[in-house]
């Protein structure tokens, strides 16, 4: 039995009458790449919002390692090791690429800020663009910068919210290699619509539908699961 780094029990969040997340149990194993999938509106972004603290939990508990973090503010959870990268690219567009990453690096116990920032940029292949203003980067490079900032925090858990959205196919290949290189030091939780990326990268997959937990298993198990096929993969409007 693999050790659990992040877990949720009966996690719930309703918005008015909408049950965005409804009593979900979830375990993230140390060192895995875990994909979270489900049709649009399944509650994926709300669910990771609850895990990261961006959205307050209504009921249920969240544990990181052995500590309960259900009521902790988002910035405290980040310092405890949960990094979150935004679905909609959220960098500091008017600051240099260097400063964007430095803001993450200076949160860690760094001795040489400049060297550590350069190393963090090199990991996402942006080292030659350190002095550029972030807002003038191409979309793909901004996505990489966003991930680079998350990585530079040296998190225990990295939550990636649709990281390949809007990337060209060549960029996706590079991105997959990057995510693979993170484990097992970092545990990755990935929300992703691109099934090729999910099947290729994920060690395990959790499927949400209408705010509820539908299934968890290896890619092969999820492919063979009839409930999942009905709800999602086999549907006529399945997304690619």
């Amino acid at each position, binding site marked *: 039995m693999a050790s659990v780094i992040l877990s949720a029990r009966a996690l719930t969040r309703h918005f008015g009458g909408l049950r965005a997340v409804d009593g979900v149990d979830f375990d993230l194993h140390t060192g895995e790449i875990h994909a979270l999938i489900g049709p649009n509106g399944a509650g994926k972004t709300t669910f990771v919002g609850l895990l990261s603290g961006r959205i307050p939990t209504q009921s249920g508990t969240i544990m990181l390692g052995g500590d309960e973090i259900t009521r902790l503010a*988002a910035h405290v959870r980040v310092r405890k090791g949960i*990094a*979150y990268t935004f679905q909609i690219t959220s960098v500091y567009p008017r600051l240099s690429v260097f400063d964007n990453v430095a803001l993450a690096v*200076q949160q860690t116990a760094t001795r040489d800020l400049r060297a550590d920032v350069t190393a963090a940029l090199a990991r996402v292949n942006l080292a030659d663009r350190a002095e550029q203003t972030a807002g003038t980067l191409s979309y793909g490079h901004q996505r990489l910068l966003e991930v680079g900032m998350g990585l530079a925090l040296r998190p225990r858990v990295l939550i990636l919210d649709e990281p390949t959205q809007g990337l060209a196919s060549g960029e996706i290949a590079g991105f997959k290699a990057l995510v693979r290189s993170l484990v097992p030091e970092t545990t990755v939780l990935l929300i992703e619509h691109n099934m090729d990326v999910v099947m290729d990268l994920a060690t395990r997959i959790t499927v949400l539908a209408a705010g509820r937990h539908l299934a968890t298993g290896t890619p092969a198990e999820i492919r063979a699961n009839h409930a999942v096929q009905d709800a999602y993969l086999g549907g006529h409007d399945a997304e690619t």
Partner: protein
Amino acid sequence: MRNWILHLGTLALVAVLLVTLPPYHATNLARILVLVVFAIGYNLAFGYTGLLSLGHALFFAAGVYGAALPVTYLGLPQLPALIAGLAAGGVMAALVGLLALRTAGVSFMIVTLMFAQAGYLTLLYFNPVTGGDEGLVLPDAATLLPGLSADAARATIAFALFATALIAALVIVQSRLGRTMVAMRENEERSRMLGYNPFAVKLAALALSGLFSGAAGAAYALLFGYAGASFATIQYSILPMLWVLMGGAGTVLGPLIGTAAMFYLVDIAGSYTTATLLFVGVALVLLILFAPKGILGTIRERWLTWLP
């Protein structure tokens, strides 16, 4: 490196001007330098952290009275009183920030304005102690530094305070704290998800801003021998904003340029008309239309992108 050359060079130029200018302008310059310290403080909150405060008159007045009251009633010497004023400004800003920073944007403007007005009314209410509108007359500046004339003492202290404030501001904005302050201005939600507590960072920035404002208020009272409730009026919240906007918000030297430009604009206009505020208004309209980033902000955007 070029940053230090530019800023130390500016300090040297100001020092030369103080010594060589005719007495009228040298006294003006001393007055300007003290007000620049106020503007530098305002700029830390507004220009770098994005906190649009309408209550900085309260921090300035805290400095004025934090120095004037102990001098008047306890016989505290003037130089220690300067420290007392600086501390009063910082403490006042931290206290206001604890409450006002629960709001943001327009609400923050209104709440800070409200605190400043409450401070002004408090000064009037305690008229027997504070002197209210009439104020308190403080010892002559000639007693500030033994052996120096009043003018020389003013110039020396004003320059020392200005130089300290300018270098401190330069160090702060290039530090990790400075980078974090800018991060709050640019994208607070992103900063939270990098592990920063927005409230704590903004409180620190506002308290720092209050220290500068308090030091400026204390120096203004001590150098020019007067403390009054008028320093807590809305005018003293608006003025630093105008100086910073004119010089360039979020630039280290902008407050110096903006304050000097505005001071002489009013001074020169005053020799032709009593409607000096009209000139200030026209200058601001032109600025917003043609150089919304202020004088130095525009220069930085076009030519000197490395300016801090």
